[in-house]
């Protein structure tokens, strides 16, 4: 659930699984089952998330990591092209580096 994690540093695979869980919570399990989610998956084109869904995804990251990671700050620095090109791998790297 959305609780601030007290465990140690996650490796990239663990972060990937966590992100996949958040995506599932935002767009629903039955849709995720039909998708092949990889680190290459882009939020707009592949996952077909719109702005409101991306924001709700970022709220989940915030709820999980708390002050440890300024994810919303990072997201808010993105311009339109960066948002369009944003993929899962970029987010995993960012979270990994921030820990």
């Amino acid at each position, binding site marked *: 659930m959305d609780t601030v994690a007290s465990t140690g540093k996650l490796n990239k695979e663990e972060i990937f699984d966590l992100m996949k869980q958040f995506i599932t919570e935002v*767009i*629903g399990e*039955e*849709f995720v089952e039909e998708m092949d989610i990889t680190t290459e998956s882009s939020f*707009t*084109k592949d996952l*077909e*998330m*719109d*702005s*409101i*869904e*991306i*924001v709700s995804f*970022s709220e989940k990251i915030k709820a999980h990591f708390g002050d440890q990671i300024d994810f*919303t700050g990072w*997201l*808010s*620095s*993105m*311009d*339109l*092209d*960066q*948002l*369009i090109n944003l993929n899962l791998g970029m987010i995993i790297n960012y979270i990994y580096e921030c820990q």
Partner: protein
Amino acid sequence: MAKFVFIVPPLTGHINPTLSMGAVLLERGHRVGWITLDESLAARLPEGGELLHISYDENDEQKRESEQYLDIITKKIVYGIDSLKFLYEEVLIPLNRHSYDGIIHLLDQFEPDLVITDHQMFAGAIAATNKGLPYATSVTAPAAIKVMEELPKVHEWEMNQVIGLQQEFGVDVPTPIVCSDLLTMVLTSQAFFGDMELTPNFRFTGPVINRPATKTAFDWDKLKESNNPKILISIGTTFDHEHKKSFFSKVIEAFGNEDITAVVVSDPDLFEQWPANFIVQRHVPQLDLLPHLDAVVCHGGHNTVCETLSNGLPMVVIPIAYDQSHVAGRVVRTGAGERLNFNRFKAHHLKEAVNTVLNNPAYKESAEVIKQSFLEAGGTATAADLLEQVASKQSLEVLKN
């Protein structure tokens, strides 16, 4: 008597409110013109309204260019955040660039006391500024002025496109001038718009709803013969055939032969047969119809959402592009409806969402709260009052100098 001129893009949702405002100004004895690329608007103007058609001394190429803007927005299927890039880069900026000279020429000819420019007709604000004419702004898609706190750079990117165009036409200021300092009318209520600090030049008029003069035929007997809940399904016109087919297949699967009457806005020829509990028409008299309905399924166009909420009806919003995701977000936030993802939703989601908004009275109650806020904002009469006030204040300024 004053002379008002509206500058409108060739987009129905942006034109309709100006027709209502213009009609009231004409009734009050003013002169009113409409500057537009779309010559066919003449037939829809209120009595006494003057069409000021943007046309150029034509070599044919320019003429063709004019025509391509009339339906450019329907030419490409765009979705989500990508659609904003398309909207600005391929529609709004070229449309405004193309319109600018024509607007300047028509302003010289009409000599208005007050220009009212649509917030997406940046060229209107630029032309008025360069001509030294006072202008007001009509914000017909209010989501466009709302900065998403979480994604501020999106709005910044949009505004940079506008600033670039301003500079092209010699307005050398580092901020967008499209929202007038004199008066920027936001055509919704603060309650529906949501929290955001705005300067006093921004005024919420409530929705300015246009009642078309012509009557659209409708199968009222079939609607009234059943006591089942009645819903309208209207998803706009900007799709290709395949998308429509896939969308309405899901609608049929969700509501076919259920205890519900579904009024569907669609080309009836899309399917050979529709379920017996469906009323399918290419056009419906939406404003006359809404008071007889229990809920609406739509794509989140601002006008349809406002008309639905003005009738205190709950809704299910399935946004596709542009500001629709935001409008859908407001519907959910105010409690007046549910949203679905256009690309992902399945028939059973639609059925569940519609049943939820029909059966849980909280949705209708929330819609009634927004309806009340619309009534308090005033609508067309408030907008016309504000425009008259600005025009008379401006003419006093002119006399003083």
